[in-house]
Each structure stands twice: as C-alpha cells, then as structure tokens.
C-alpha cells in the first residue's frame, strides 16, 4: 500500500531512526522499514479495529503496548517490537488456537495457522466451550464454519463499511459471541447479494466457497491466472484459480491492489464461472446449413452470412424491421459501436440493451 502523502515525521523503530508520512498507521510504517508486524483483524479497506491485539507494540510514554494497526505515527514516537512483543504474539496465538476447532473447512488460506507455524506455537488446551453452534446455509455459493471463526469481525465490518449492507451480525457477548448471517437466518433471507466479500475478508477461511469441485485442493496449490471479468463493462480484475492437474477453473479470487475493483467482486464475477467449462458453451462460430443443422465454421464466413442476411431483410422489408439487442456484458465503447451500427449502417432506431431493464 502506498504511503499517504503529507508531512514527513521522524520516529524511532527498534532503536533506529525512521521516517514516515505523518498519520501513517504504525503497521504500514514498520513494514516499509522492513519490520513485519502480524495482524489478523486488520484490513486496509476497513476502519482500524484493534481487536485481535496481535500487532501490539511498545510505544514510549504509553503505560501499555498499543495496537500498530490503530496507532498512527507521530513526530518523535519511540516504538519497540522486540521487548515483550514476541511473547505477546505467541500467547495471543495460543489463546486463539484454544478455540480454533476447525482450521480448514474449505481449503482457503488460514493466517492464524500460518502464524502459529511461524511462531512454533500450539494450543495448550481446547476450551471446553470452544464448540459453537453449527451453521448450515441453503445458498449454493458460500459455506461457513463457526468453529474456524476467530471473531475478528472483518466480515461483519466489510458488510457494514464497504458493502453498506446488512448480511452478517456479530451477535452475543463474551463466550456466547458468534458471527452469523443476521438472526442466524440463511444469507438468502438477509440483504446479502452473495458478493462473497465477507469470504474474501476472512483471515481463517471460516467462510469459504461451497463448490463441489475445487474444495479438496488448498487454494495455495492452485495456479492463478489474472484476467478481466467478462460480466460487465466495469472491468474488475480477478484471478481464475486453475487446478494444475485438471486444468480447470475451480474458483475466482481477487486482490486488494487490483485496479478498478480493489479486490471486491460481485456474485457473478466471483461465483458464476462454471460457464467456462460448461458442455453447452459455444466455442466456435456456428452457421445453419442447407440441411437445417448448425455447423462449425470460420469467423469470416459466419460474419459474411450474418451481414448478407441482415442486408437482405433490410432491403426487402425496410430498416425498421430490424432491432438491435446489446448485452450488459459489453463495455461502454462496444455498446456505443453497436448503437452506431444500428442507426447508421442498418438505419433502425430499435436498439435495446438488457442493462436497461
């Protein structure tokens, strides 16, 4: 993430002088100076939360360590990540593991498990009340296992702060706290549009893609192919995740640094990719022969046949007998070219796009 533009301040990081734009979050300033501070509840798309406490660092003058994800750099600040901080990280990881019953429900990456591996930490015990009420949703796209949830509330905050919708709730208090679609209903009975943004915000994979195919192989073993979404003209950047063995697209992801969509997708972009390998999908142009059947042909021949057909209808019956239907999947420029074609080449005013309905 590029640092905010502004006045530069100098501060001390683990005994070294460092510079940062005033007001930059400590976690980012430290990263730019080569010091990685682990976070779980932090998400650059969301307001600072400071809940998981994994990123606490010592700040001179503060009686207690402060969360680097919610503390901003100020002139003369003296920050330390080496005294008690590593032990806090280990203990907090132990704590989270003590109620982390199912680390891998859907094959998505799990940042808590990674952190535990890096720090070589295990759960000292499993809390007797760690088991949460299971959740089963009848929607086809997203699954959720409460036992993998660490209550960082990134998903809930994503729905509230980014999507501005009411799909998920952080319900209850203390040991009874849980995250569920509001009232524990199905996602389909909330305001949810199944964009899957909550899923992409989840650091432990507690919310995951619910596909028959592609869930057995962990996401990290999939090959990512960056491309542009074909569903509309916004041009969201996404990664087709390809199973290297079958060479089939098994899921779609996106990254926060991708231009135009910042990692956000809609239900179509994220979940409607099964047309790619669908047996009914046309992969070659087809032209109906004299035998009444469709035959594969070249684009050149297919376009000639279409042009001749359109010209014949226009000449015999007049241009107003032809209507042009454009698609919402086209870009603005393509739609412009189509209406131009309709009006000037064919001479019709009957032009429509499914975007209008």
């Amino acid at each position, binding site marked *: 993430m590029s640092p905010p533009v502004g006045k530069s301040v100098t501060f001390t990081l683990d005994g070294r002088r460092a510079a940062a734009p005033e007001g930059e979050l400590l976690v980012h300033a430290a990263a730019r100076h080569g010091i990685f501070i682990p976070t779980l509840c932090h998400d650059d798309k969301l307001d*600072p939360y*400071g*809940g*998981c*406490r*994994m990123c*606490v660092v010592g700040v001179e003058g503060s009686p*207690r*360590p402060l*969360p680097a994800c*919610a503390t901003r750099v100020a002139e003369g600040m003296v920050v330390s990540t080496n005294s*008690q901080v590593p*032990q*806090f990280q*280990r*203990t*907090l990881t*132990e*704590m*989270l593991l*003590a*109620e982390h019953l199912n680390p891998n429900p859907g094959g998505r990456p799990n940042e808590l498990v990674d952190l535990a591996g890096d720090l070589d930490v295990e759960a*000292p*015990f499993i*809390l*007797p*009340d760690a088991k949460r009420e299971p959740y089963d949703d009848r929607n086809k796209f997203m699954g959720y296992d409460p036992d993998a949830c*660490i*209550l960082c509330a990134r998903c*809930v905050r994503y*729905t*509230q702060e980014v999507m501005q*919708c*009411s*799909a*998920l*709730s*952080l*319900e*209850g*208090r*203390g*040991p009874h*706290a849980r995250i569920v679609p*509001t*009232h524990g*209903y199905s996602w389909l009975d*909330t*305001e949810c549009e199944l964009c899957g943004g909550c899923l992409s915000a989840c650091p432990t994979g507690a919310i995951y893609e619910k596909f028959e195919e592609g869930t057995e192989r962990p996401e990290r073993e999939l090959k990512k192919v960056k491309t542009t979404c074909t569903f509309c003209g916004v041009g969201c950047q996404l990664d087709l995740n390809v199973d290297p063995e079958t060479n089939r697209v098994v899921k779609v992801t996106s990254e926060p640094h991708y231009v135009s969509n910042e990692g956000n997708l809609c239900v179509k972009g994220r979940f409607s990719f099964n047309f790619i390998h669908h047996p009914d999908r046309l992969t070659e142009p087809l032209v109906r022969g004299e035998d009444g059947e469709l035959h594969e042909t070249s684009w050149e021949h297919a376009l000639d046949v279409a042009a001749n057909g359109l010209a014949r209808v226009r000449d015999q019956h007049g241009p107003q007998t032809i209507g042009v239907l454009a698609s919402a999947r086209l870009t603005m420029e393509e739609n412009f070219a189509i209406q131009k074609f309709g009006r000037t080449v064919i001479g019709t005013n009957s032009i429509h796009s499914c975007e209008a309905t």
Partner: protein
Amino acid sequence: MDLLKLTTLLEDLPRDRTHLLDNLGRVRREVGPIDADLSDAVADHMNIRRGEVDEVVSFYSFLCVPTDVVRVCIGPVCHCLGARDLLAREQEQGNGKRVLGVECLGHCDLAPVVMRGDRVEPEVVHRTNDGPSTALARADETLTDYEARGGLAALREAPEPARIVEDLKASGLAGLGGAGFPTGLKWEAVAKEQGPRYVVVNADEGEPGTIKDRYVMERRPHLMFEGMLLAMRFIEATEGFVYLREEYATARTRLLGALDDLHSAGLLDGLDVKLVVGAGAYICGEETAMLESMEGRRGMPRLKPPFPSQVGYLGRPTLINNVETLAHIPAILCLGGEAWAALGTRGAQGVRLWSISGAVREPGCYEAPNGSTLRELIDGHAGGATDEVGSIVPGGAASGILPPDALDVPLTRDDLREWGAGIGSAGVQVFPTSYSPLTLLAETMRFFAEESCEKCTPCRIGNRGMHHVLAELERGRVAMPRRQVEEWLEAMQQTSICGLGQGAPFPMRNAFRHWPDLFAALGEHEASVA
C-alpha cells in the same frame, strides 16, 4: 406479538440512533421480549440496518427475556451463601417459566437474592450510617426533605470555578467507581476542551459486592443530582445523562422522582438531563463502553487514547463521574476541600462509602474514612464477622483477594499495592474459611469470562482459559503449567483493551501469592525458581 400495540408504539419512538437502547427497552416492556421480528421492526422504523440492531439486541442480557423473568443472583457473595441451590430450586418451581442465573444484582447485603421482575427478594432494607459527607442514615423523600437537611447549599452558593477546582484538588477526591482518577483534574481537563460538552453519570454499578451507588440513589437521589448539576455548571454543559443499570428498578423510580422535583423547583431550567437505562451488561460500566451503548451500538470499549474528556459522547468532550463521586461534592464544597480531606485517617484523605457484605452480621453500606482497616469496617460498622474469616475481596472483582492477615492493613491504594491488591470500588466481601479461595477465584474468572464484551482476544479467551485452568485444578488436573499461566496473565493485563481484561489477572496473582499450596500442582513460576 401484539401488532396493534407495536404499531402505535413505533409511531412514538424517536428515530435518532442515540435512542436505540431506550426504544428497545420500551418495546420489551410494552410489547414483549425482542425477537428477530421486533428487532427488525425497530431497525426499519429507525432506518438502521437490521443486522446492526440484531448485534445490539443480542449484546445485552435482558432485551430478549420477558420483564417478569425470575433472576437469581450468582455473584460471589450470593454464590457463597447458597445461590446455586436457590437457582436450582427456583428452576424446579418455575413451572416452565424462565429462571435466569445472573451476575451480581447489586444487593449483596441481602444475599442470596432473587429478582422477580422488578421486585427484589428478600425485601430491601438499608443498613447504613450518618456519615459527615453523604449522611445516608435518613432517606430524603422529597426535595424539601433534602433542602431541610442543608441540601442545595453548594448549588445555590455557586462558588467560582477556580474555588471548586481548588476544593476538589485539596479534598483528594478520586473517582470512586474503581479507577480512582483525581476528580479535580478531570473536571479541569474537560472544561478546557472546546464545547459543546456533556456530563454523564455512571450509575451502571455492576462490580460484584458493590452496592453503594444504589444506596445513594435509593436514599438520597437529590444529593447525586446536586453533584451532577454542579458538574454541568462547571463545564458549561446543557445536556447530561445518567446511565443506570436495568436491575436497579427502585433507583430508577427515585431518580425520576427527584428529576421531577428539580424540574418543578426550576433547577433544570435551560438544562436537559436524561435517564438512560441499560439492559444487562457489566461492561457498560466501563466509560467508553457506556458511551458506545448510549450511542446505540454494542457496548464495546473504545481504543484509548483518545479519552472521553477529549472525545466522548458523540465525539464531544465528556465528563464521566460515578454516582458516589458526585454525591461527595456538595459536602466538599460546603466543608471546604481541606476539611473534607481531614476526615480521612492514617494519612489518607476524605471518606467513602464501603459496601460490606458476606459473612458479617450487619451487611450494608457505610460511610467511613479512607485509610480504615478491614477489621474496623467489619467490627465497627458491619456488626462483626459471623464466621472465621477465610478470605476478603477488598473492592470488587478485579481488586484482588486478601488473606485474613490483611485485616489490619489500612485500605489505601498505596498500602494495598504492597499486597498486590487494589481498593477498586470499595465493595468489601468477606468470605468464611468454608468457602475455598480456589472456588472464589474460579467464580471470579467465570464472571469475567461471561461479562467480557468479546472484542479483544486476551479478555475473551484469556478469562475463559483461566477459568478452565482453575476448574481443572479443582478436579486435581493441570491444564497448563504455572509458567504459561503467568504468560497468559501478563498478556491479559498488558494487551487487553479495557480495564476488564487488564484487571482480571489481579485476583489470580493475589491467590497465587497468598495461598501457594492451592496452586502447587501447577508447578513453580519461573521467576520464583530463579
């Protein structure tokens, strides 16, 4: 659900988000327990996302239960005096009606306690004394009563702000809710901030063993309001709030009555003083959680800094004082700060209200000098112990657990620090030898776990982990070695967001220190090995 009632009621409910908790409370009382449909109806009416109202409703213990629900207190004093049996009995006799075991109801002087709807059993009696500062012995029925006893003198005299600060500082008065921040400094700090400013009275007394604010509000509500009005005048606030815990029904009536009195007497002209009633969440006594609750969100503490004196209610500078703190202010201004400070003993300044409960003959709330010893309080005020004293909690759940050797220690912050304990809210709980410190400690950690808001890891999981360690130890098993327990306690104390998680390690460490044999199975703490 009575739809007709709901429709009429909804028309009446203000739409501003700060009214959410109040609106939900009204719907609960007038229509029924808040279920998903009622929650959505309120959300739609107020134009708040349904999910956010669901989050708020489920945060509190009582919004989803009927108003006539039977609540059995399982706070430490009630627990020691047989609350578990009482709960089982009530559940048996409940005929299918819901009976809840709830955390401290703030009637420890009557333990064990049951609330049927708003009615407290056994019947409420006040055991108190006529101290020079709060004079709780006689209850004021009306403002006339209050004035006849010298009330309103400070408010009418209207001392200069500079003199008020001088008196407050000289008195040594420090926040009596438990945190102990010097009141004079706090008033001064808020007054310096850019207006508009607010005053909030913290009447969400929930610290186990603490009943003092209830005594003040039930007996002398005008006294608290005089302190509050002085505060509002001092910081030039025109809006003020009293955040009262839901369980204090009598106090609610008394406060509303006193507000009516003050209104009729013209003392509230140009001022807006509102009562905000909570819905069952200990954490809302934490000042920033309280502000969140008042703003219609889950009562989860904010990250500090900034402090409420700078960024408080609705982002404005806010003066938050405990009920008892305000109740002492008229006396301080009338007597003068130094004279009030001289009421203390053994070098400590001033007096405070001590809630004394448990194994004593006359449990109640007594005004006594700061610097008093436990023995003086128990024998001199509470009629002596009923049993051999086994352990004492000096000031609420997080203040620590002391052995009988500490009976003659002056109860001041400094003296108690040497014992690893704190004075907290001065909710003194006396436990007999028959009640094991291990059980007391396990109950304390269960309480913290239950009342954690859940936001931060060390509090949400740390307290449950500590409870697990103690529960296992009671069964003779070791869940985690002592070294690791200490690591967890340190992380809880240092990295928790608010005082709940930060304070929870104190009773654990106290118990380790004073009853080492009980914890020997966990092994040695590395520091003590070295």
